[in-house]
C-alpha cells in the first residue's frame, strides 16, 4: 500500500494526508509536482490548497504540471486517484472527472464542518462505507460549487457517479443543508469506472478524535483498501 501525495506550489494539508493515511497502514509520501515518474506507487492523492495560486481558474495551471501525465496514466490504468478540495478541482480541469467547481452560491469562503450522505460505494473512496452513512467533514473552500451542463449532470446521476451529497444531520438532502449551492447537493463524485474520485470536504482533517471528528476515516480507509499493488 504505497500512495503518492502530490505537492504543487500552494498545496496544503499534504502532510495531514500523509499522516492520516500512515495511521491506516499506508506508506504515503509527498511527491513534488515536477516529478515525471510515480513508478512504485499504487495510487495517488492530490491534496487541497491553491495550486499555482489558482491563477486563471482553480486547477487550470496545475493540470499541466509534469506529474499530471503520471496521474492520467494511473487513472487510465484503473489505479486509485483521489482529489481533495483543490485536488478535486485539478481532476475536473484535467477532465479525469466530469463537471467543474465555481464560486460558492453566497460568494463566501466556507470553513466549517458539514454533513454529507454516502450515495454510492462503487469507488476507491467509498468502498468501505455504507450507502446512507452520514459523515461530518470540514469544508474549506470558496470555489466548491459543483456545476455541470444539464446533459452531463444527467449522465453523472444516471451512472451513479455521485458519491457524497450535502445533507442535514439526519441524512436528508435539502436546499438548506447545501452549503455552497452545488448542483444536486453534490459533494463528491467518481469517474465511470470508480477508480478516480474527488470531493470538496477534507477527510484528512476529520481522521482522528483529537481533531474533533472521525468522519473522514471511512473514506480514507476505503482508499487504503483500494491501494493494492498493480501486480496483485
Amino acid at each position, binding site marked *: 500500500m504505497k500512495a503518492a501525495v502530490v505537492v504543487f506550489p500552494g498545496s496544503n494539508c499534504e502532510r495531514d494526508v500523509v499522516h492520516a493515511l500512515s495511521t491506516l497502514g499506508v506508506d504515503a509520501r509527498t511527491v513534488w509536482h515536477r516529478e515525471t515518474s510515480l513508478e512504485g506507487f499504487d495510487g495517488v492523492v492530490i491534496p487541497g490548497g491553491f495550486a499555482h495560486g489558482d491563477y486563471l481558474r482553480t486547477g487550470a495551471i496545475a493540470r499541466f504540471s509534469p506529474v499530471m501525465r503520471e496521474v492520467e496514466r494511473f487513472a487510465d490504468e484503473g489505479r486509485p486517484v483521489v482529489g481533495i478540495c483543490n485536488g478535486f478541482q485539478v481532476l475536473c480541469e484535467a477532465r479525469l472527472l*466530469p463537471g467543474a467547481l465555481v464560486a460558492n452560491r453566497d460568494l463566501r469562503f466556507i470553513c466549517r464542518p458539514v454533513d454529507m450522505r454516502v450515495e454510492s460505494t462503487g469507488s476507491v473512496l467509498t468502498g468501505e462505507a455504507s450507502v446512507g452513512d452520514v459523515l461530518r467533514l470540514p469544508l474549506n473552500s470558496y470555489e466548491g460549487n459543483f*456545476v*455541470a451542463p444539464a446533459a452531463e449532470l444527467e449522465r453523472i446521476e444516471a451512472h451513479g457517479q455521485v458519491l457524497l451529497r450535502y445533507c442535514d444531520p439526519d441524512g436528508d438532502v435539502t436546499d438548506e443543508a447545501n452549503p455552497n449551492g452545488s448542483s444536486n447537493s453534490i459533494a463528491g463524485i467518481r469517474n465511470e469506472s470508480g477508480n478516480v474520485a474527488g470531493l470538496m470536504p477534507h477527510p484528512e482533517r476529520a481522521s482522528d478524535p483529537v481533531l474533533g471528528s472521525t468522519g473522514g476515516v471511512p473514506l480514507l480507509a476505503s482508499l487504503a483498501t483500494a491501494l493494492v499493488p498493480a501486480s496483485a
Partner: protein
Amino acid sequence: MTKYRIDIRRKHGLADPEGATTARALHDLGYSGVVDVSFGRVIFVDTDDGDASDVAAMCEQLLANPVIEEYAIEVVE
C-alpha cells in the same frame, strides 16, 4: 505581431453566483428591468507566429474551460 482579445463567459444556464448577486444589487438600486448579469474575463494574447486557430486551440486547452465556458476571439491590432 498580432494582438488578440479573448472574451470568456460562463455558458448560459450554468450557475454564475457573481452575476446573480450583482443583478440583485442592481434591482435594489431600482434597476428593476435588469433580467440577467453575467461575469466573464478578458485575456489579451500578443503573438508573433500564431493565427486565430492557434488562439482557439489555446482557449480549448488552457485559457477557457470548455465544460462551463464559451469564448470569442477578436484581432485588436
